[in-house]
């Protein structure tokens, strides 16, 4: 039997208040929610500012730069990801402050360490959605 093809990453299912993230992703723009009262960003998208509880937020384009806060190597994957193992998932501390969970694509395990610099890139899931992944920066 030939090696089976690895299915694409499952597509995200947006909510009304996260839609701007996916609209940006389609253009390969990395959009983050920003609290106008405190000047702080937040991730994942929320209906309100987690800093004030108010709805005084807007979307701003982010740099896409970050560092590795922590990481894990997935050896046994959820069913939709079987065949991709092993792969690295990072907790990425974004330059703007919040943390984001994402695959660190193509990373050699021995190069991974806390504080390693990473940058966003986009993986095309289907015609509608690009999904954020990160890669190590030399």
């Amino acid at each position, binding site marked *: 039997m030939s090696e089976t093809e690895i299915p694409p990453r499952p597509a995200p299912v947006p909510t009304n208040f996260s839609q701007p993230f996916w609209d940006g992703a389609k253009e390969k723009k990395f959009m983050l929610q920003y609290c106008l009262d405190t000047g702080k960003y937040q991730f994942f998208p929320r209906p309100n500012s987690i800093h004030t509880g108010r709805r005084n937020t807007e979307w701003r384009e982010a740099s896409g730069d970050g560092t590795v806060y922590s*990481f894990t190597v997935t050896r046994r994957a959820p069913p939709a990801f079987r065949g991709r193992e092993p792969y690295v998932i990072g907790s990425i501390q974004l330059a703007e402050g919040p943390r984001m*969970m994402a695959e660190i694509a193509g990373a050699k395990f021995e190069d991974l360490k806390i504080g390693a610099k990473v940058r966003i890139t986009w993986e095309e899931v289907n015609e509608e959605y690009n999904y954020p992944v990160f890669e190590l920066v030399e």
Partner: protein
Amino acid sequence: MAKKDIAIVGYHETKIDVNTGRSPFDFAGEVLDGLLDQTGLEKDAIDGFAVCSAMSGMSTPFWSVVVSDYLGMELNWCQQVDIGGSSPLGAVSRACSAIRDGQCEIVFVLGADSQSTANLSNARGWQPEFQNPVGLMGPPGAFGFISNRYDGVYGLDLTALARIAVAQRGHAVMNPNAFEKFRVPITEDDYLNSRMISDPVRLLDCVMPCDGGNGVIVMSTERAKALGMDKMVHPTGYGERNNHGVNDNNTDILESGHCVAGPKALAQAGMTVDDLDMFQPYDDFIIAVMLQMENIGFCERGQGAAFVKDTDLTHTGNLPLNTSGGQISAGQAGLAGGGTNLVEAVRQLMGEGGERQVAKASNAMVTGIGAIPYLRNWSCSTVMILEAG
């Protein structure tokens, strides 16, 4: 002076097993029958009911009403507690408040879940669009982040974690209610060589999803004495912290809400960690036990491994740990799992631990851990001090 006005007068748990084909209602019924047997109460004397949410029961939004209906209970106070694995302790604390407030007199606190038979839950209630397409292997992945961060900040001493795993497994061997397959001893090498799931989390770091049920009966101490109850355990301290660090972009993934809940519970009971006779912490992953030791204040942050190696954690040691095997070695009965730690503490304080009975058993610390959030430490942290009556 700690309040001893509320008493736990009975406990019961079922055998823990996998793929039983039994519904959570059936486990609930077995627990109720066992509690009536042990306490001598009539079913209709129970007028309060607090049930932990269940992964196998999530298709009904009326969980507490439906379960108590199945059991034929007419009630003045009825609620579901949904702070994950923290729910059993949360339910006891809420029962204490309801009794003190006169809403009800005798409360049945229940956990019953058939997670391995039927898991109907969507346990990730937060933004699945930023989780599911990433491919994280659920809780082992989340604890992979915690473990690697710990390694980077303090250095992760796997031999200390192995020590915890071996001690708990030794206790499961003596627990007839533990999942039968786990009732064999393991060595530190067995732990270290077990299959990697999500680096550096190994198979023997993880709980096994199982089916089972457990529960306790709570009433005022005055009522218990009037009924002639001769064995009772008093909840004398309680702390709870939910969503610790949620609004802090720089939250420390190694800091759990136990750093708030632990000192609060101890202060209420008028104790320090040095006064504790045993430690029955929620254990979904081995490292969670060590992190709770650090966050509650048994030792400084980063000193968990040294503390573990300086402490005899067996049932005859100076700080007996999860003397029923904990959930990792007795099996995790879904969201009823936290009741495994609770029931064991009550059993020990009533002097009914059998061959694993702790010699000096005047008090115990029990904890809960509930829900795994997006990239933080766990969501819900509870700590309860129990004292023998």
